[in-house]
């Protein structure tokens, strides 16, 4: 278990505080914020005119237009609202890998720190942020809130998460989808070690619910380069009975080929569905990665 106070370093806080996450889609929020809301209300941003019907407030009638056209029109304005972000963090067994030397940063550590930064970012923007952790199934879920005190709850939960179990990512997303009812942003932080096709299909459900889906796919450098030479027994981190003795040099080429195919399939699927897929590896700084991603994303 990681100490929740150590999840966010001062440098991370400083760097994340200067970031601003804009929603790409129209999101539904409860308070006035920086994100567009599907609800029309009071705002400085004019949206459209519509014909007055009985029951409309008198004060919303555009009298100038009535003078010109002699008809009653209601003046409608764009209402800005806050963002509802849900962080979905993978804590399956495969996220426990921290390199063949065993002294590096595990993928789970990286994912937790990245999630903490994102939570800090959203809370700092007065956006609502929630958290779900999962392995085989959803292990914990905190609905989105925008109170500042909510952050400590999120961080505590992140810090207390532990890896184990197999990854059933598509199943987990199917379970989570009903819980995320309003439009918002779903940020998945995982190694996505599931079948790309079923994963993308599940993510489509979230999109249909008008959610903006962002995937941070966490890799360890060993998984990308397969730097093994001597005869090795590979034991699965998720399923203890699954183990193989292999001459790594004999399958390196095939492994890397499979890896490329898998990544390509996931990348293509995400592009097709307008899902943001951000590959990242544990060597990177999560705050820098976040800053880089947000700067590229811009204002939606």
């Amino acid at each position, binding site marked *: 278990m990681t100490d929740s106070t150590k999840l966010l370093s001062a440098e991370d806080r400083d760097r994340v505080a200067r970031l601003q996450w804009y929603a790409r889609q129209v999101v539904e929020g409860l308070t006035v914020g920086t994100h567009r809301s599907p609800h029309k209300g009071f705002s400085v941003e004019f949206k459209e005119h519509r014909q007055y019907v009985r029951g409309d407030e008198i004060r919303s009638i555009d009298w100038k237009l009535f003078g010109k056209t002699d008809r009653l029109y209601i003046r409608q304005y764009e209402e800005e609202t806050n963002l509802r972000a849900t962080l979905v963090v993978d804590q399956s*067994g*495969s*996220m*426990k*890998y921290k390199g*063949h030397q065993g002294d590096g940063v595990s*993928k789970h550590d990286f994912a937790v720190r990245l999630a903490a930064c994102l939570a800090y970012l959203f809370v700092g923007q007065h956006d609502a942020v929630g958290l779900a952790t999962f392995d085989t199934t959803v292990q914990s879920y905190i609905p989105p809130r925008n109170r500042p005190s909510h952050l400590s709850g999120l961080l505590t939960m992140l810090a207390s998460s532990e890896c184990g179990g197999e990854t059933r990512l598509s199943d987990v997303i199917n379970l989570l989808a009903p819980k995320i009812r309003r439009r918002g942003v779903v940020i998945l932080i995982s*190694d996505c*070690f599931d079948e790309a096709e079923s994963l993308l299909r599940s993510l489509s459900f979230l999109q249909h619910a008008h959610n903006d889906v962002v995937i941070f796919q966490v890799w*360890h450098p060993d*998984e990308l380069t*397969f730097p*093994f*030479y*001597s*005869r*090795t*027994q*590979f*034991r*699965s*981190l*998720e*399923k203890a009975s*699954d183990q*193989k*003795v*292999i*001459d*790594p*040099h*004999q*399958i*390196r*080429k*095939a*492994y*890397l*080929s*499979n*890896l490329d195919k*898998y990544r390509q399939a996931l990348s293509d699927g995400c592009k097709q569905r307008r899902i943001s897929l951000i590959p990242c590896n544990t060597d990177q700084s999560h705050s820098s990665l976040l800053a880089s991603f947000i700067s590229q994303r811009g204002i939606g």
Partner: protein
Amino acid sequence: MGFLNAVLLFGAASLAVPLIIHLLNRSKFQVLDWGAMHLLQAAELQNSRRIQWQSILLLLIRCGIPLLLAICMARPILTAWQIAGGGNSAIAFVLDDSYSMQANSLQATDGVSSFKTATDNLNNIASSLGRSTQVSVITLGGQPKSLLDGSTFDSRLVRRRVESLQAEQGPIQPIAAFELAGRQLINSSQPQRQVVILSDFQKSDWSKITNESFVAFQNAFKDLPVKPRITLMPIRSQPTENLQATIDATFSEVIGVEDPLDVRATIHNWSTQPAKSARIIFQVDDVDIAAKNIDIPAQSDVQVLFGCKFDTAGEHRAVVRVEEVSPIQADNIAALPIYVLEKLSVLLVEPVAVQETLQAETGFLELALQMQGAAGRNDGWLQTKRVQADALTEQMVKQANVIVVANVPRLSDQAASWIENRVKEGAGLLLFIGAKTDREWFNQRWSPQGAAAVLPFRYAEPQTTDVAAIASAPAGQPSQTDATSNDTSTPKPASLHIASGPYNHPALALFNRPEQGRLDQVTVRSWVRLTPWSSDKSTEVVEASDQKSNNLPKQESQTSSASQTPNTDESGASVALFSNGDTFLAQKQFGKGTVVQCATSANDAWTNMPLRPAFVPLIQRLVIGMVQPPKVIDSNANSSESNLELMNKQELESLATIMGAQIQESTTEFLDTAKLQSTGREIWRWVLLALVIFLFSELLLEKRLTRGGR
């Protein structure tokens, strides 16, 4: 398919090493907890067959490397593959045709000699190797010679020539034979050359090749680009007894009609077993005269004495023969040539007629010649006639077989001319010096520049060791002053003797055995130095005469090769020397006759020689030897050849090591090896190439499997 070093094939067992390493490596691995198992499983599924195939291939290659290395080092021969040019080779057979090869062969049926087995083996090899083999045959016994006058491809010619050979030669001369074989091989253009030695490897013959003579052996083949392959093919003879007969005589005997002659033969048993009742037969002119049965202990001698007489003058032959089933027939017979004369007339020419025999110059000579000799000749066979020099007639000279001139001052020209003519016709002339002899007359008359070159050597200054004689010496007498005037630094010996033997001259050979008389006990007080005629000439002439002396007839060369260093002239030669090196006796051929020149007197004036027991046989043999030149008895069956002790296995292997040869016991063994080496192709180069390919393949495959993914 065969291997030259088949033992090295055991190295192929090392192919187990990569197998063991492979298995050990498979059981050793590191453990890693891994997340992306789905990617790993997919990759393994895709490549499992390829991985398995490559692993097996790598394992096979690794096992094949030590296997190929072992095969390569074993030098494989592919016999089924006839190389271009076939088995082109030149083969020099060195065939032992010494007497010892007459022994029965152990490898053949009874009655077949080792030589027959050797020639059969030679013919078999020559015919089996085919027409592409150039064959030469060198005989090893006696003086080595090439049987074929070169070499030939015709095995039938080889067979014809070899079958005409007999094992009748003396001890072998291996180095000379190898030199001849080397010359035969160097003339051959065939790529492969080999020498096959067919011999019984008799110990006495082959022990000559030792480590010391190894250099000479190497030099025999030094001109060849590659040393030929040498094969020793021992023809083993059956261990059997062998008796050898020899007659105790070095020269032929000269006797008179009805003179009794004792022939003494020695029978040697070379066997390690005693010979029981060996029958010894004595023949004269191919007629059996006598026979004796004797027992001869192992490796011992037994002497047998036979007596005979001849009733007709002329040349006869006495033979002692061992009648036995002896493996070597040649040494069973010993022959002695005998010359029988009707009578021998000796004319003794002296300066003045003296009635008392012992006062005369030729008195001692007459007594010696009339005395019954050791051979027991009849009185009257040797007739002597003393005559004063002035009373010499042509008739006397013509009737004489031998003319002895003792202390004669000079001869009349007529008498000298008669003597010259008679000697030319075949008579003997024996010259003794004395105080009265006019040396200058003889030196002028009978010098090479004179009327006839009768004198073997020039009469030089007289010498003496007798001081009293010097004081009373008239002119021309020996004087110490004269003797020492030329060489004052040389101390004069107190008494001068005739040098001790061994003597090579037939008349003196008797004295090689001290019991027959000792010449070296003869004391000489005065003598005349005999110097070669060539010493009067310039240095160049001396050198020329030395060169010519090398070309002297055989008999003269032999007589000149006494134990002392003899002086030789263009025609004369020293026969015996004094102990100070001066010549005692000199001899030369003049026409058909023989001239012997003595450096001292015939009576006791200058020497005590007439008073010594050796005088009688010396004079008798000198005189008889001048009538009929004795023949040297050539003992064909050399005693070393009669000793049939062969080299044992260790000695033969040691010999093979020295010669760098291999031993092949049989023709079949030789032909099998020859087939491997001449008709087969050594394929180790191809195996080596395969080995290199395997090594590179292993390297590439290893890199592909191990390093390929990096």
